């Protein structure tokens, strides 16, 4: 509806700013906004027709009124207007989409309007106008009743009615065939001091005419004449109806002549009135004649008019004529909603057979199988209680006509939604007859309705119904829907028996078992399982049993139940048998627990596992591995060994050699005096995976001299897992002695620190940390998290020194930043001991050292709980002084809230001058949500109602989030009302969330849920752009334009402080500028801000590429990878440089995985980016080498070069980059092996590219002797002229390469015969001013009688001249360019 946009345009003009603020752009261009469709429909407005379907105009009129309102700039008006906007949008959407308004929607809009306090006149108008033919699903009388209710209610609330309202009411009366006294109506208006206008009179005439009261109509007509009001076509049309209804068809027809005499040509409305009149009499002949007459004239009847005639025929009891009219309908697309509404109306009027007739005539495309057009009809039939047999028949017909793919199923769904058991039963029987299965869950919607009301009788009825249909209730049915209705399961059984509800005893008792399990009644479970005689599968009980275990702390019962299920033939008979079943159960048990739960129950779980071990319960090894991974990710690796004891050894993979096999093999080799290093390592690793520490250690002691690094690493890890600090430390020392430069992986270091710390070997732990730093062990997020766990564990154990010293070491070594999280154990230490003064002291100390206040909230809460007034004062003074009074007030506010001191909290938040701090409020909200503190969050929302600048919608959004967690739709619904009371316009995301909660609980959603057109709208400032905003933005863009990054960034900061948000474009330009100026920290700051304030904010290709390069340079590889992902997700093409840099950086870190990730990410884009496959091959190999996986790297390269299906032609398989990095990095072992590989490829496979590349790189890095040796071993290198020449040509482009070229020539003298080569050589010598070498070259060439080209001679001549020497030949006279060009041309002609 274009009218809606008018106020927005007006505002745009007023603001006249080149850059629109977000809110306005949304308003102007946002989808979901009405378009012109409604206006179109209203193209022909007929105020009197008494028409069924000419209503849509109302909204545009209402919106015009609103437009007028908006121009008054007071804030209350604005609020009213936006409230109106909201209502209008919802109603309008509905009308636009469907041509009607559902009653519930109108009711909700009405309720909200009432709640908003003083509804404006335009809102009243909107509501009243909606009560006519826009409600086809309501009976006529109900619609009028609704209109009256709205009228009275709004009047009570102080709405002032004007003539437009009275006219609207009249219109509703006409549309609803409401019988009333026009004179009384006029009297009422008079009493209200409202002057009737022309429209009023017209409508009153129509009212009289509808009753067939020509006399009454004439009286009003008289009034109009005395007032000199013009008599319009509408009046004449009404008179046609009037005469006809008074039984005087002749005069009705005569009206047309009268009209013409009065100078008014009868239009479609008049003819329609006449047609309706004939139809009401069942006079099909006249209808047809008239229609023909109209067709011949230049008038045109629309589908909508024809539908009206159909309605008249049907209502008057002549359905037999409907088909004849239907034939004439053209079914223009835009009238489909009108047709649907007629169908609905007919169903409402109990004329459903005619409705079906019309439906079947609808030319809806029937090809696509997804077409279920008839749904609306079926649903309404169910609502209107159409007899079941009829519905069955309709379903059949719709199916035949291909208007519905599964009409019976759909109707059944409607019946279930409407809780109509009897209808549902009939439909299910019909489905069954057609061979469809009737599934148990079909009955759940019926049960859930009764369950909510605890309606036992209702439940029994449904269960009986199930029996009747032949469906046996399953366990879910009992556990979820039946049992909750009763006080005890015993009484369920009794009631079912009493009512003759048959039930399967087996199913029932298992359901009972599950129900008890869920409630944690393990005693019952055990005794049931012991006495039970019916076998059933363990897995059916698994889910409930897990819940039960977690609710019970009785480990003995845990074990006994598990044992029984494991050993008793009744429960684990099915394959794969008890080992699998119990193993899987244990896995699920742990998986279902959170990591904190597992940590808290560590001891109990250990006890449980050991009891299982004693009971000889076993689990398969593969499931054990799953559990091991889980425990690792939960940070409780200490439990792994306790699970390991359960592993079924006999059945471990028979394909692999067992440890004893390996051991005998080892002994044999030893006896034969052969090297045993490899096999020893294998054996140790195997023992480690079997958690056999003792044996592994013995083995190590026995063959100490043959131990390799890998074996030690596995052993160290094993000892750590077994909490064996002593051996772990010793092994680490031996490991260092073996190879002091060897590096463990991060996880092993961290585990060592943990174990050593735990056993009081503080200094050793710190030494490990130092080593981590020295060896530059990568510290990832997970590592920092592990540090936290180590510290936190120690804090919980109360080990003051451990916490302090390790924290100190981690922070001073720079392994991790002293973040709030990492430092919180320093405070936890004292909180756990209830030593509040020390806790506070520690927090303050952290502030002084690191400018953070860890756990200040928890400290304050405890202080408040203990009533430590002095300490509270101290804390508050400190916070106040360091972070300002406002922060202090918030700290105190949250602490009071948390501890339930709401009165005090209220006092704090009402402190004059306090204002909303969105981040802090959000922090507390999130905290409440995470801890499920419903009351606390409710109080927060309540107390901040009057807080200055508080984003109420955001707070309510948080509250709804929490309600969603708890699935509490009643409270969510109440929030909805509260928001209305507070006059808050909810954001779309809030509405969506609310709708989700309601829908999840099968509640009707009382509003049109806004469609998701982009992710979530984070912030949509509702205020207008202030001049300040506009100026700032302008300034920023100017600064960007002039590349003044500092100025631009300062403007950004200023705006940020004032909470001003610019648009996407502005931020993008600022970020580009900052990145170009290499100011990535600031760029990131801007990016973060933009991302949190503009949902869907993205950088463009160039900016993302720049960002990647910057991130790589600063070694934020993870971030860079994320940036790359983001860019690719946006279908951007990052620059080749950016991607290559990132890959190379990953390779240097040995991060193979990331390179593989990148490869996957850019898969298919290589050509667009310009990325060669070799980039990946080189860097993956390099990464592997960095990880000491030299063999793997070499093997894969060799495979690529020797396999049948090569992806890269060997002659382009350039490994120069890899060789250079290996040489530069002095990775001697790798270089050695690579060299062997290159030679092997050359000698055995005749692939010479790698060996030549290696040779050249050796030369290039000055390792001439190595190069010479290689050349001697592999003479074919000298024959690889193309490769060698390319090397020459590349090298001579850069200065400083003369020595390299010289060495190359020395090694391969044949090169000099090539023109490209000697040209390059000369170029290099000239570059480096190497006169001697140049002379030597010239002489040797002339000695060979080589004919030198002019360019060569020119170069040489210039070099000699510059060196002050004479030129022994005539210098070519032209310029360099000339000869270069000449040379090029001559080469081209040779080709």
């Amino acid at each position, binding site marked *: 509806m274009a009218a809606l946009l008018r106020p927005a345009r007006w505002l745009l003009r007023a603001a006249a700013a080149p850059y629109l603020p977000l809110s306005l752009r949304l308003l102007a261009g946002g989808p979901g906004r009405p378009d012109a469709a409604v206006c179109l429909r209203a193209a022909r407005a007929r105020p009197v027709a008494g028409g069924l379907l000419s209503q849509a105009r109302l909204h545009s009129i209402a919106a015009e009124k609103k437009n007028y309102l908006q121009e008054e700039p007071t804030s209350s008006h604005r609020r009213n207007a936006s409230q109106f906007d909201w209502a209008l949008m919802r109603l309008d959407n509905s009308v636009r989409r469907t041509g009607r308004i559902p009653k519930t929607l109108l009711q909700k809009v009405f309720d909200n309007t009432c709640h908003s306090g003083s509804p404006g006149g335009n809102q009243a108008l909107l509501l009243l106008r909606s009560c006519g033919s826009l409600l086809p699903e309501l009976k006529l009388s109900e619609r009028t009743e609704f209109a009256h209710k709205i009228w009275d209610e709004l009047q009570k609330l102080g709405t002032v009615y004007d003539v437009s309202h009275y006219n609207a009411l009249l219109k509703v009366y006409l549309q609803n065939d409401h019988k009333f006294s026009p004179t009384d109506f006029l009297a009422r208006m008079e009493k209200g001091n409202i002057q009737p206008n022309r429209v009023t009179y017209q409508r009153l005439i129509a009212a009289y005419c509808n009753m067939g009261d020509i006399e009454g109509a004439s009286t009003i007509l008289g009034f109009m004449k005395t007032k000199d009001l013009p008599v319009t076509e509408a009046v004449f049309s009404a008179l046609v109806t009037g005469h006809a209804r008074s039984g005087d068809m002749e005069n009705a027809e005569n009206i047309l002549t009268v009209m013409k005499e009065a100078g008014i040509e009868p239009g479609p409305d008049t003819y329609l009135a006449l047609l309706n009149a004939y139809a009401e009499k069942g006079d099909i002949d006249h209808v047809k004649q008239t229609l023909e007459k109209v067709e011949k004239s230049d008038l045109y009847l629309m589908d909508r008019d024809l539908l009206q005639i159909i309605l008249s025929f049907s209502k008057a009891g002549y359905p037999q004529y409907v088909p004849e009219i239907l034939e004439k309908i053209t079914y223009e697309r835009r009238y489909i909603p009108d047709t649907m509404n007629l169908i609905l109306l007919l169903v409402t009027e109990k004329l459903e057979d005619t409705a079906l007739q019309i439906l079947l005539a609808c030319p809806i495309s029937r090809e696509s199988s997804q077409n279920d057009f008839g749904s609306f009809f079926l649903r309404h039939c169910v609502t209107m209680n159409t007899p079941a047999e009829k519905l069955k028949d309709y379903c059949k017909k719709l199916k035949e006509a291909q208007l519905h793919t599964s009409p019976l*199923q759909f109707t059944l769904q409607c019946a279930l939604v409407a809780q109509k058991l009897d209808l549902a039963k009939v439909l299910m029987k019909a489905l069954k007859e057609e061979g469809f299965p009737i599934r148990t869950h079909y009955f759940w919607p019926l049960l*859930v309705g009764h369950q909510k009301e605890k309606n036992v009788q209702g439940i029994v009825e449904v269960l009986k119904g199930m029996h009747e249909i032949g469906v046996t209730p399953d366990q879910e049915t009992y556990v979820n829907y039946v049992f909750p209705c009763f006080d005890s399961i015993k009484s369920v059984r009794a009631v079912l028996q009493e009512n003759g509800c048959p039930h399967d005893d087996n199913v029932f008792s298992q359901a009972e078992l599950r129900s008890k399990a869920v409630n944690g009644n393990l005693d019952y479970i055990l005794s049931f399982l012991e006495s039970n005689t019916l076998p059933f599968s363990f897995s059916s009980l698994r889910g409930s049993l897990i819940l039960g275990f977690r609710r019970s702390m009785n480990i003995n019962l845990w074990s006994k139940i598990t044992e029984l299920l494991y050993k008793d033939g009744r429960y684990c008979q099915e394959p794969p048998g008890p080992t699998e079943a119990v193993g899987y159960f244990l896995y699920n048990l742990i998986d279902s627990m959170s990591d904190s739960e597992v940590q808290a129950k560590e001891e109990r779980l250990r006890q449980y596992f050991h009891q299982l071990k004693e009971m000889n319960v076993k689990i398969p090894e593969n499931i054990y591995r799953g559990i091991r991974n889980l425990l690792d990710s939960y940070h409780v690796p200490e439990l792994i060994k306790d699970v390991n004891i359960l592993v079924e050894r006999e059945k471990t993979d028979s394909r692999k050699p067992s440890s004893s096999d390996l051991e005998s093999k080892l002994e044999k080799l030893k006896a034969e005096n052969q090297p045993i290093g490899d096999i020893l390592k294998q054996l140790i690793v195997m023992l480690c995976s079997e958690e056999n520490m003792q044996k592994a250690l013995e083995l190590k002691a026995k063959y100490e001299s043959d131990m390799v690094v890998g074996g030690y690493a596995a052993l160290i890890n094993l000892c750590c897992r077994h909490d064996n600090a002593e051996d772990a430390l010793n092994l680490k020392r031996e490991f260092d002695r073996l190879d002091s430069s060897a590096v463990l992986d991060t996880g092993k270091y961290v585990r060592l620190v943990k174990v050593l710390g735990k056993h009081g070997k503080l200094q050793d732990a710190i030494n490990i940390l130092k080593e981590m730093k020295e060896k530059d062990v990568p510290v990832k997020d997970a590592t*920092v998290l592990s540090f*936290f766990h180590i510290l936190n564990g120690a804090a919980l154990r109360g080990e003051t020194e451990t916490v302090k010293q390790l924290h100190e070491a981690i922070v001073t070594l720079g392994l991790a930043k002293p973040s709030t*999280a990492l430092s919180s*154990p320093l405070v936890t230490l004292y909180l756990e001991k209830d030593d509040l003064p020390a806790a506070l002291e520690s927090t303050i100390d952290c502030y002084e050292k690191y400018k953070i206040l860890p756990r200040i909230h928890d400290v304050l809460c405890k202080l408040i709980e203990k009533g430590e007034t002095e300490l509270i004062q101290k804390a508050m003074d400190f916070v106040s002084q360091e972070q300002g009074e406002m922060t202090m007030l918030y700290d105190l506010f949250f602490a009071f809230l948390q501890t339930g001191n709401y009165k005090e909290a209220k006092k704090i938040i009402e402190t004059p001058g306090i204002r909303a701090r969105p981040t802090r409020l959000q922090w507390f909200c999130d905290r409440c949500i995470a801890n499920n503190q419903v009351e606390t969050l409710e109080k927060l929302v309540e107390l901040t109602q009057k807080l200055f600048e508080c984003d109420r919608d955001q707070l309510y959004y948080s509250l709804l989030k929490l309600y969603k967690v708890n699935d509490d739709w009643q409270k969510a619904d109440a929030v909805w009302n509260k928001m209305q009371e507070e006059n808050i316009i909810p954001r779309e995301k809030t509405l969506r969330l609310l709708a989700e909660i309601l*829908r999840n609980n099968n509640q009707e959603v009382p509003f049109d849920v806004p469609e998701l057109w982009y992710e979530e709208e984070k912030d949509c400032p509702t205020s207008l752009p202030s001049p300040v905003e506009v100026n700032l933005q302008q300034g920023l863009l100017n600064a960007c334009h002039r590349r003044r990054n500092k100025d631009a960034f300062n403007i950004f900061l200023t705006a940020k402080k004032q909470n001003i948000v610019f648009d996407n474009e502005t931020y993008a330009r600022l970020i580009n500028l900052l990145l170009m100026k290499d100011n990535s920290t600031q760029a990131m700051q801007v990016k973060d801000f933009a991302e949190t304030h503009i949902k869907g904010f993205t950088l463009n290709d160039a900016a993302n590429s720049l960002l990647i390069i910057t991130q790589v340079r600063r070694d934020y590889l993870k971030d860079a990878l994320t940036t790359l992902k983001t860019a690719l997700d946006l279908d951007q093409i990052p620059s080749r440089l950016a991607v290559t840099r990132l890959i190379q950086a990953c390779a240097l870190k040995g991060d193979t995985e990331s390179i593989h990730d990148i490869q996957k990410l850019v898969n298919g884009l290589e050509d667009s980016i310009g990325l060669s496959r070799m980039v990946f091959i080189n860097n993956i190999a390099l990464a592997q080498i960095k990880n000491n996986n030299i063999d793997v790297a070499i093997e894969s390269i060799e495979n690529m070069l020797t396999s049948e299906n090569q992806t890269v032609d060997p002659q382009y398989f350039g490994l120069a980059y890899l060789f250079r990095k290996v040489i530069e990095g002095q990775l001697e072992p790798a270089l050695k092996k690579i060299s062997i590989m290159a030679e092997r490829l050359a000698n055995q496979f005749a692939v010479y590219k790698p060996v030549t590349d290696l040779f050249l790189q050796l030369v290039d890095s000055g390792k001439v002797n190595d190069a010479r040796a290689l050349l001697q071993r592999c003479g074919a290198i000298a024959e690889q002229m193309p490769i060698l020449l390319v090397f020459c040509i590349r090298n001579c482009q850069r200065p400083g390469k003369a020595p390299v070229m010289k060495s190359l020539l020395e090694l391969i003298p044949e090169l000099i015969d090539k023109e490209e080569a000697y040209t390059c050589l000369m170029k290099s010598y000239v570059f480096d001013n190497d006169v001697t070498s140049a002379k030597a070259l010239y002489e040797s060439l002339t000695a060979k009688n080589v004919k030198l080209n002019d360019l060569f001679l020119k170069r040489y001549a210039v070099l000699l001249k510059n060196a002050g020497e004479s030129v022994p030949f005539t210098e070519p006279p032209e310029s360099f360019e000339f000869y270069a060009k000449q040379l090029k041309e001559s080469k081209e002609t040779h080709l």
Partner: protein
Amino acid sequence: MAASAARVAVALRTNIGRPVAFVRKIPWTAASSELREHFAQFGHVRKCTVPFTGFHKGMGWIHFSSEEELHNALQQENHIIDGVKLHVQPQKPKALQGDQTSDEEKDF
């Protein structure tokens, strides 16, 4: 008091690497057993959940025992149960939330 510590850990835990298919647009006539039956053709279905409160909401989760099986299921273009086409996609891992558990850092 260790609650805040636990929260850090929970926030950092992800469900990466679990082969789960997220299914939408399940017709109301189908429940978990129908889903399980359908998806069994792609591999071993470890767990199949379709949350119900009277009706289900058209959503369900299929836990396969390996990535490969999940991949098989995702490869298939059309999944049709009771004549209705399902929407099948891999379950996205929950986003990492970082280790900012407190607002103190943000609030300077």
